[in-house]
């Protein structure tokens, strides 16, 4: 089959690789109908995620048709149309029992590696380095889906398009969980750093959850425009043009946003060249792995006693964490890879009922063969790129 393979920093290639096979009874093979490039794939592409190997098939946002099932998969049949969560979860460990599927204790066969890096291991993830299991990903014609009796959601409404459903695999639930962590209350102002797909869905989710005011922060006009038009943000800030903290204080008469969402993560950019250069240089020399501008600003901007939620991906260590601001002002900091399984049915219903059409983020649809072009375009924000969907 054809598959998008990570071949080193800034290089992906679409190559011929062996077809996947059923390895365990609870596996299924899915023929991919649509797959997307995630912002977190750019962290792989840019070389910031450790434990990648040349030849790794990438991609964790995918959906398609079941073409084979193992004998332990009773809930799916060949021909079923399914949406597949990006984390892999066994459904039977203590974490899965408690709906924390991205912390599945069994699905990462390289848990030992992850423990060295993070202390404890999170779940396996499709196509996302060997730290999260070394699973082949979904930017391919076919994928092996482990624990297929637990993860995939069967689509029972043919009127819904792939474009409406595909983002249930990751970015919609990721934005949703980021907003949910904010425990939004009436009157809340929610500030969202990053107007990429996760930031868009975090803003849209905050709106669905009843936030009073939603402020989205980025530096690309086209993304901020989408936040206003598609996600329902009430305000946007271009951090290259204004001082974000002052603006946020102005908007809230000095209180600061009640809830802050960092949908940027480890490759944050900063409007001030010297500050950006400082973190960039430290990251380039690997004395830190993660750049933390967005997180720092989210914490220091947040209202005292507020919540900072971090759906943005971090990998290792950052510098200058504002621990004093966090501690002295009773800020609650929450993170986590998305427990997609927990939200899949709820958000499917949101889509089906028309409360939100997630396809508003799509700017480009390419053939799988054009994945390398898609990565470049997305990375460089070329041609107003916000989300690339690939069709095998």
């Amino acid at each position, binding site marked *: 089959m054809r598959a998008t*393979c990570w071949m080193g920093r800034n290089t992906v290639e679409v190559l011929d690789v*062996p077809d996947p096979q059923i390895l365990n009874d609870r596996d299924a093979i899915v023929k991919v109908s649509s797959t997307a490039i995630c912002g977190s794939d750019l962290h792989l592409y840019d070389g910031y995620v450790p434990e990648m190997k040349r030849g*790794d098939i990438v991609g964790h946002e995918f959906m398609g048709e079941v073409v084979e099932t193992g004998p332990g998969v009773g809930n799916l049949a060949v021909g079923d149309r399914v949406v597949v969560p990006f984390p892999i979860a066994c459904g039977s*460990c203590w974490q899965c029992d408690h709906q924390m599927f991205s912390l599945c*204790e069994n699905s990462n066969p390289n848990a*030992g590696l992850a423990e060295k890096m993070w202390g404890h291991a999170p779940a396996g993830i499709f196509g996302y380095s060997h730290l999260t299991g*070394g699973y082949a990903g979904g930017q391919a014609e076919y994928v092996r889906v482990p624990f297929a009796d637990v993860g995939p959601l069967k689509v029972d409404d043919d009127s819904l398009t792939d474009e409406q459903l595909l983002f249930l695999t990751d970015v919609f639930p990721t934005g949703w969980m980021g907003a949910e962590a904010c425990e939004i209350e009436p009157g809340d102002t929610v500030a969202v750093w990053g107007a990429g797909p996760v930031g868009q869905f975090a803003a849209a989710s905050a709106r669905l959850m009843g936030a009073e005011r939603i402020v989205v922060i980025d530096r690309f006009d086209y993304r901020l425009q989408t936040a206003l038009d598609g996600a329902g943000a009430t305000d946007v800030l271009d951090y290259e043009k204004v001082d974000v903290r002052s603006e946020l204080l102005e908007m809230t008469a000095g209180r600061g946003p009640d809830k802050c969402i960092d949908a940027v993560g480890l490759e944050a950019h900063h409007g001030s060249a010297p500050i950006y250069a400082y973190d960039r240089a430290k990251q380039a020399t690997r004395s830190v792995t993660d750049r933390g501008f967005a997180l720092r600003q989210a914490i220091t901007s947040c209202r005292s006693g507020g919540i900072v939620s971090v759906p943005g991906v971090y990998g290792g260590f950052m510098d200058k964490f504002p621990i004093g601001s966090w501690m002295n002002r009773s800020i609650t900091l929450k993170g986590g890879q998305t427990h997609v399984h927990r939200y899949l049915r709820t958000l499917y219903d949101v889509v089906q009922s028309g409360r939100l059409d997630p396809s508003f983020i799509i700017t480009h649809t390419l053939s799988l063969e054009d994945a390398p072009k898609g990565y470049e375009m997305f990375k460089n924000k070329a041609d107003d790129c916000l989300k690339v969907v690939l069709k095998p």
Partner: protein
Amino acid sequence: MGNGEGMTGAPDRIDSDRALGWAVLVLVPLGLLVALRRRRRRPTTELTAAVTVNKTPQEVYDFWRGLERLPRFMQHLESVEWLDERTTRWRAKAPMGTVGWDAELVDDVRGERIAWRSLPGATVPNEGSVDLRPAPGGRGTEVRVHLTYSVPGGRVGRGFARLLGEEPHQQVEDDLRRFKQVLETGEVVRSDGSPEGHRASRQLLQRPAQPVG
């Protein structure tokens, strides 16, 4: 070293090529490496490892007590068969084919504890135990494994050491992870990078995340 190195219990019978205990099976070979390097003259090694399994103590006990199932998650074990109610015969991978031994249960408390000891004359005399305790607040069962074994010197020991260059403790942990997987999910979890499941040696030498051809 030879017969009757006798670190673990005093053998009356000598059955020199066969008597290993069952934990040893897995751990011994590896232990050899470390023990030989570190302390050739004090060949007793102790290992402990623990894992929490989302099952009741009785379920965990029942699974482990079916010793014939152990090869499903113990990577160096080929087979275990019952000779009588308390005695088992083991076969494990060894540098020159397989090695076999007999072991006896010395403690067996339903839902709580299983302990074993190699029969006298074992090449690698050993003993071990698995203790089960309910984890607090419905967190499943705490499984604690304790192993003690003595390491042979000479050609056999060196052979084992060459074959398996892993830390013995890592090895037990790998086996316990697979044990947890098999008990909780019914299978050993495999990926393209780690098609054999969790194994320390494989984590250093991952396959690319591409289907095995």
